[in-house]
Each structure stands twice: as structure tokens, then as C-alpha cells.
């Protein structure tokens, strides 16, 4: 009986361990060339270090267990020299090889051709601003906390930190790259398989660092074109009475002081662009799934949900809250 329970526990633990290795945010579940080369690097280093550790342990255990013999009066100096030289050469070789392969693996990252899709990434406390930059000025559009990329194409990210240092990390696609204020860093990512990959800030950036996630959605070129065309459009004018009232509330209250909804009078620049907020999977940098209810909860009391963030609690009447959340959820 006890043995059966133990077995079940072992199985469950093994399953949990393995489950961690795949999923939507894991460096061991690589779906892009840079992530694959980093994963290989991890595997090589872990295997070599494990071998070295086992070798050292075996030698030590053998030395401890070996029966002590009567030694000859003068131990051979030659044998000692061989042992020391061997250890030094092995160490130098292993460290040298590690240096070279890690240089080669990380050297290949961030190389991109000329006509790549470029996205300007802004890291702010505590959300991500994305601006798609195309060859024409009319191709530009802004979004937040969620990017879509075409599968199999290099995407160049221009990384800027606007307040403190953040770090862009989507483990399944690439390594980390910092967003430093006053400095422009670049990172190239490519997804070889369609899917949703989660990333998050990897440099402590303040109170809500843990709630600064983003999604990368890799899709076929056709789907991507459809999505980016939709994102480029201004928000549609609401016809329904409730949604129109929501827009009025949005414009009359402090919301419009910080947020932009293209196609309306709301042109604030300091908060996330909300033109198509209803089409994003999450709100508040990966905190909630986007639903009308979660939007209402967020608007009603952002400081309880994500204390310290820069969105103030705006006093609204129940009717205003109802209409404004309905309006935002309708912005597909």
C-alpha cells in the first residue's frame, strides 16, 4: 500500500518536473534558432559538468575506500607530475571549450538581414509598449503587452527603457536583452513554429516587476497580415447607445489624459494604446484575461489589483463603469 502511494507520488513528481520543461514559457521548449542554440549550450554545459562531477566523486570515493598499502619509501615524483599536469590540462581544455562554444552560440544571436520587420519595444513600469515600424510611415501602429510575429521571419526588436532598466525575455524564442534608459539595444527573434509564447521582464524593475509579462503570438504570414491590417485601423465609431456612452465617459474622465484610442479625441501618450485593447488576450501586462469583467475590475480599482502602478483610481459611477468597460471590451 505504502509502496503504491510512493510510486504514485514519484510518478506525479516526475510528471510535474517534465511538465515544467514544455509549455509557453520555458528555455527548454525552444521554438526559435537563438533559443535552440542556447538550449544546446545549456545541455552541453550540464552534461560536461555532470561528467566532471561524477569523475571527481568516483575518484574521491575510490581513494577513500581503497585499502591503504604500505607505501614505498619514496613516492615516484613522476607520477605526481603526470596527475597534476593532467588535471590542469583537462581544466584548461574544458573551460576553453566552454568559452569558445558559448561565444559561438551567443555570437549568432541578434544577427538580422536588412528588410526585417522592426518593432520598437519600450519598457515602462510595468508594461510593454510596442510600435511596429514599416517602410512607410503609414505602416506604423502601436500596441501594448502583446506582439504578433510571422512564423519563420526574423523580427528585429529595438529595445528602449524609459524609466528604469528592464529586460526582454521570451525564453522559448531568445535569450535576455536589457532595455536601458538612454541607450538603444537590439535583439532579433524568430519563431519557427506557430504558437503563443509568454515572456516577462527579467530585470528587477520595482514593485510590480513580477506582473510585467508579455505574449508573443507567432502565426502564418497571412494571419499576421490580417492582424496587422486590423491593428492599423482606427477604432470604429460605436453605434450602440451603451458603447457611445462609454466613449463619452472615456473622453470626459482622466482616462484620455494618458491613453490613446485612435479615431477619437483621446490622444494621451503616457499609458498603453487602447485602440484595439479588446483584441488582446490579456490586460495589465499579463495579469488578467481580457474580458469585460476584468476590464471593469481593473478600471474600478487598479491600485488594489496591481499596487503602485501608474494608473490612478478614477472615481466613476456604476453606470460610467458599466459603459466604459463595455466600450473597451468592444474595441476588437
Amino acid at each position: 500500500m505504502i509502496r503504491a502511494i510512493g510510486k504514485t507520488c514519484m510518478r506525479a513528481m516526475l510528471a510535474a518536473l517534465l511538465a515544467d520543461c514544455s509549455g509557453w514559457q520555458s528555455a527548454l521548449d525552444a521554438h526559435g534558432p537563438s533559443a535552440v542554440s542556447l538550449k544546446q549550450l545549456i545541455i552541453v554545459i550540464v552534461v560536461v559538468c555532470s561528467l566532471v562531477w561524477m569523475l571527481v566523486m568516483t575518484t574521491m570515493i575510490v581513494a577513500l575506500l581503497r585499502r591503504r598499502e604500505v607505501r614505498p619509501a619514496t613516492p615516484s615524483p613522476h607520477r605526481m607530475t603526470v596527475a597534476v599536469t593532467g588535471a590542469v590540462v583537462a581544466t584548461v581544455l574544458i573551460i576553453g571549450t566552454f568559452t569558445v562554444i558559448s561565444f559561438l552560440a551567443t555570437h549568432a544571436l541578434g544577427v538580422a538581414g536588412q528588410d526585417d520587420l522592426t518593432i520598437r519595444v519600450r519598457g515602462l513600469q510595468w508594461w510593454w509598449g510596442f510600435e511596429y515600424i514599416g517602410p512607410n510611415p503609414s505602416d506604423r501602429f502601436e500596441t501594448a503587452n502583446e506582439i504578433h510575429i510571422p512564423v519563420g521571419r526574423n523580427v528585429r526588436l529595438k529595445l528602449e527603457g524609459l524609466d528604469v532598466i528592464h529586460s526582454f525575455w521570451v525564453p522559448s524564442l531568445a535569450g535576455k536583452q536589457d532595455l536601458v534608459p538612454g541607450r538603444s539595444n537590439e535583439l532579433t527573434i524568430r519563431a519557427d513554429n506557430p504558437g503563443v509564447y509568454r515572456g516577462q521582464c527579467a530585470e528587477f524593475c520595482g514593485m510590480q516587476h513580477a506582473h510585467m509579462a508579455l505574449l508573443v503570438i507567432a502565426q502564418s504570414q497571412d494571419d499576421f497580415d490580417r492582424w496587422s491590417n486590423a491593428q492599423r485601423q482606427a477604432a470604429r465609431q460605436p453605434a450602440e447607445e451603451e458603447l457611445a456612452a462609454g466613449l463619452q465617459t472615456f473622453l470626459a474622465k482622466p482616462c484620455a489624459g494618458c491613453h490613446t484610442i485612435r479615431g477619437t479625441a483621446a490622444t494621451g501618450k503616457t499609458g498603453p494604446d487602447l485602440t484595439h485593447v479588446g483584441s488582446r488576450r490579456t490586460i495589465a501586462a499579463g495579469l488578467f484575461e481580457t474580458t469585460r469583467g476584468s476590464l471593469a475590475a481593473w478600471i474600478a480599482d487598479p491600485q488594489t489589483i496591481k499596487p503602485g502602478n501608474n494608473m490612478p483610481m478614477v472615481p466613476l459611477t456604476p453606470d460610467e463603469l458599466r459603459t466604459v468597460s463595455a466600450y473597451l471590451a468592444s474595441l476588437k
Partner: protein
Amino acid sequence: MKRMTGVLLGLATALAGCQREERQLRLDPPIADALDRIALMPNGISGAPPDVYFALGKPYEVNAYNLSQGKRLYSWFGCKACHGDGQGGIGPSFLDGWWYYGPEMVSIFASIRDGRPHGMPAYRDKMTTDQIWQLAGYVQAIGSYEGKTAAPSRNDEKQTRPAENRAPAKLLFDEGPIPVHADQGPTP
């Protein structure tokens, strides 16, 4: 015995230093509502803040977090466009020792909330009451003649004037050979 007392006193002082300044991240709606009810003089200059302002311990003047938030709002809401780094431009300076509507918090609060003639817009619909108080506290700190123990965060860019808690208004005040404003009142 004396040494023991010394050690204990030192320890107590060190531990007292561990206390962190309270950050008021979320203002309860009734308090925000009460904070909005300032009593201004009929000419819109000076007056009295609501009682709750004193009950909270003048949080917008002595709390470094609020001052920092005010500093962020100063650039977020484009104050720099007219007032520069506090030395003025299109709009009046906060550093020349001259307050058109007085240096009291209520006056600054009312200027931001309701706007003033000759170009100062009203921010009533753009900012919450909490934010307007934070910004007012920061503006007062820029124009202060006295150094404060509570300071907002530092600038990332190059300093163009002494830091806020160093009483830049006092350091930069220059009456000149002839006072700029004859009715300026007492020199600092």
C-alpha cells in the same frame, strides 16, 4: 554599564532607521472626495485645505513618494512645455520668488485643477484629485525657500538647476539692482 547603554542606544537608533516611509498608493474614494473640497478666498488666491488634509498629516508636502509622483506627473502632463524646469518660459517661473496666486498648497492646487487666466488650462478632467495634490506638492517644492528632508527622485538627465530639496528658489533668487516686482513682498 555605560558601554552597554551606548550599545543599546545605538541599536535602537539603527532599528528606528529601518522604518520605511509609508506610501499611500490607493486613496479611499471618500477621502479623495473630501480632499477635493478646498475653501478658496473669493479672489481665488489662498484659502484653506479641507480638514482631512491635516488629519492625514499634510501628506503631499512631507512624503517623498508623493513628491516623486508629482515630479513624474510634471513631465507626464506637459508642464515643462510652458514652465520649463521650473524657471518658466511661456508660463511663469516657480523660482523667481514671485507667486501670482501665493505659495500656499491650496492656491497651487486650485491653479492646476481649475486653470488660471492667460493660458493655464484646467486639469480637472485630466487628472484625479490625488494626482493634482501630488503635482501641487512638487511645484511648491520647486519654488520653496526652505530645504526639505523629503525629496523627490533625482533627475536622470543633466541638472539645470539645484535639486528640489536644496531650496533652488532661494539659491536662484536674484532681486537685481531694481526689484523686478515692486510689490513682491519681503525678500526670502
